[in-house]
């Protein structure tokens, strides 16, 4: 089935560690890729998105993601995490011509001070 996969369900890091969260999708054709974040007690908000151009996308709060078309991947990275990055992170895809977001299962990140 066509889907979005996030392989890490739970990640625990110490402050200042580097972060990489994996995201793979299985759709053919043109896709648009998103990372959303849900901080504790808050609603989903957009971190970054890619739909064309430079495959390395920079988002808010120092996050970036790289689209690698040959690997069907859109991994999220941050060089040095902070305690305030503790949240759940969702990768999502829309297919060209379709409006619905298809989400991965999410990755819970806990950053210990």
């Amino acid at each position, binding site marked *: 089935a066509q889907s979005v996969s996030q392989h890490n369900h739970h990640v625990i890091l110490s402050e200042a560690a580097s972060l990489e969260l994996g995201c793979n999708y299985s759709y053919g054709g043109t896709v*648009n890729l*998103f990372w*959303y974040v849900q901080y504790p007690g*808050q*609603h*989903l*908000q*957009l971190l970054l*998105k890619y*739909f064309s151009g430079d495959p390395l996308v920079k988002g808010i709060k120092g996050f970036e993601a790289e689209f690698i078309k040959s690997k069907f991947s859109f991994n999220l990275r941050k060089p040095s995490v902070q305690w305030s990055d503790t949240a759940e992170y*969702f990768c*999502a895809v*829309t*297919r*060209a*011509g*379709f*409006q*619905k*977001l*298809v*989400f*991965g*299962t*999410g990755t819970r990140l806990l950053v210990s001070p």
Partner: protein
Amino acid sequence: GAGVSQSPSNKVTEKGKDVELRCDPISGHTALYWYRQSLGQGLEFLIYFQGNSAPDKSGLPSDRFSAERTGGSVSTLTIQRTQQEDSAVYLCASSPRGGGSTDTQYFGPGTRLTVL
């Protein structure tokens, strides 16, 4: 308003009762979406509105679920004869343009529905 608002924030109901969930999108946003977030199924798309029409209802899980949007603004998601498996957080989102696939969707805080 400043963001997408949803009401109620929490709803507890008994199995078999009907419930209505409301979404107020960001002013001027033409596209509106409903999703639900549950432990077993993650985040799932339910329905998409462009103006008052719903060109994509493919995510509605059964005919007990329906939604409408009036005046190109407020939307109501109705669940009839609720079942325990309907327990979830129901999320509404809106986007500013024509609902294109590259649009950023802005999410509300959700309605947590518990069916006893």
